């Protein structure tokens, strides 16, 4: 398989100090309206934050998706929340949405590559990593004397267990009850 080299754009550091302030919300007794610059806030974060408000608010988006978008928030239950609280919550969610979307965008090539690898492992094109590759054991020199003794004890226990199992295997089994599915298939095919 050819592996494509994909590089993500260097992502900016998002810090509250550097974050451009959104246009101050216009609050009335019925609703809150926020006008946002799409270039600054990003289209997906604005949509994302608006979507998340839907359990509490009726949300209306209007404007130009390449320029400025106005978000109007009206409480679904005016007794449970206020337009001002909705506007604050929207801005807070918008800040988190920007981080979530930045992480998602930056890692898209990696996620796609790993998904491709998973398909190749699943269909047998490439082997899965061996246990040794997956979790390298610490080198023997790094083990303390106590740890080495413990491991040796475990090994001897397992060896003794295997020995007992092998001895049990020699017990007659005329009906083939202990045979695996593959062994049975083989026997049936031969018959």
């Amino acid at each position, binding site marked *: 398989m050819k592996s494509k080299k994909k590089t993500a754009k260097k992502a900016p550091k998002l810090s*509250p100090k550097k974050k451009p302030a959104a246009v101050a919300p216009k609050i009335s007794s019925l609703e809150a309206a926020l006008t946002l610059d799409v270039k600054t806030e990003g289209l997906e974060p604005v949509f994302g934050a608006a979507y998340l408000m839907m359990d509490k608010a009726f949300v209306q988006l209007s404007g130009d998706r390449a320029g400025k978008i106005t978000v109007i928030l009206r409480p679904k239950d005016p007794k449970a929340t206020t337009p001002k609280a909705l506007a604050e919550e929207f801005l*807070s969610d918008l800040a*988190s949405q920007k981080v979530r979307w930045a*992480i998602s965008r930056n*890692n898209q090539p990696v996620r796609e590559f790993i998904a491709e690898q998973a398909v190749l492992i*699943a269909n047998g094109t490439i082997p899965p990593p061996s246990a040794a590759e997956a979790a390298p054991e610490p080198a023997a020199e790094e083990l303390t004397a106590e740890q080495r003794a413990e491991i040796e004890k475990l090994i001897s226990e397992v060896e003794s267990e295997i020995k007992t199992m092998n001895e049990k295997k020699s017990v007659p089994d005329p009906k083939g009850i202990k045979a695996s599915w593959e062994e049975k298939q083989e026997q049936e095919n031969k018959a």
Partner: protein
Amino acid sequence: MSRLTGLAKDVSVETGNLSAFNFRDMGGWHLLTNDWGQFLMMSTADFERFMAGKVGADDPLYPELESRGFLKARLDFRQLAANTVKKSSFQWFPGPSLHMIVVTLRCNQKCQYCHSSVVDPSRTDTDMDVATAKKTVDFIFSTPNPTICIEFQGGEPLLNWPVVKFITEYAQAKAKAGNRKLLMALVCNFTLMTEDKLDFLFDHHVSICTSLDGPAELHNKNRPFLGGGEAQQKVVYWLEKIQERCNADPKKKYYLPGALMTTTRFSMDYGPQIVDLYVKLGLEQVFLRPLSPIGYAKRVWKDVGYEPGEFVRFYEDTLDYIIDLNVSGKSDIMERMALILLSKIVKGEDPGFMDLRSPAGAVLGCLAYNYNGKIFVSDEGRMVDHQGDPIFNVGDVAKDGWTSVIDHPTTRACVTASTLDNQPMCQQCAFKPYCGVEPVFHYETQKSVFGQMPTSGWCVSHMGVFDVIFRKLRDPRSRKVLDKWLERDQCRWQESGNVPAGEPEVVR
């Protein structure tokens, strides 16, 4: 803050070095998960250091972040890909493994919340006939999954016993001829069970599952007989009888009956009593299942239903009671939903539970066959049809083949809608690697197979249950109990050689 949760106000974030992950503020600590099924629970202070890019190679957090795929510069691609394969094992087998056959719509009970859209016992016109049964089995064996699990559903399947027997024997003959692995299960209310039927079921290795909502006063209120009478006593009688026979014969040990409970508004005050009854009856697990507003339950929702948050509180309180019983040594009973989620979260395996998959089990994992041979994306889809809306009908065993079912526009819509990466809120949720959405549920409750997660009862209750499970995982006392459950569950499957991980969860 939305239910998804977010960052605290003054957190500084260095996104360039962060690997792909979702996060959740759990109140004092944060949960991080990634697409590859790995998770980390860390203090909020550590989370904020990590987000700010301040965790260096000498930091105690570093090895765990690295080994679990949270450090962008230290990703082990092949290992993470292998984790993905294991976690989504259901994706690598073609075609559905679970086939639910409704052999009759008739039922002798009139459950308050009936999901199954049943009819009166006199309506024999809703019985599956043998010709349709044969075509149904032929269709099932034309689907490509090497493992087939046939589950008898109803109505009350024992009201059409000859067809249950026919399907069992015919399917077993076909499985033998075609070298297919076949599992069979019967979901019934036990009220029509007899020794002869039981003999047949044991002889043919059909596992048995029933409904037991709790103590008599609760069960009989939720699940009364048509025309009155006490149903719970019959269930308890047969549960004990079957257990006795299973326990007397080591070969039958793995066919111990299972029981399921459905939570109604009436159940809310009975958590400990329900568990105590299951313990008394020697049942290994209790499955605390929420009620879905589908089928008849939708009509009576105001009487038997509840808010999703109420279910989550009931779930947590009852799970706490079960954990206490385990800690005190009074019982080792397990809770099934917790076990399903723990298999996904801790073991990184798919336990074969159709509802919590991405994409959902609809068609890709399961199919439901009505008494008349019509094929549906799921049993819930069949119930919607019974209410007069055939939207989830994807074929007919008399005239359609597997290719037309998998290519059906409804199949495509359900798969697209239930792929969590297509769901705006789910794709950012920390529970995404372990969760799923159900297109039929959302069609019924929100008139869209996609649904709208911020207002979805499905999302509220599942998110709540995930919160509970992760809180238990962080609590050492509960964690010890949960780890034991996982160990026992693994041993059970290994010993029985019956249903390994990744195969269908027949107990629904």
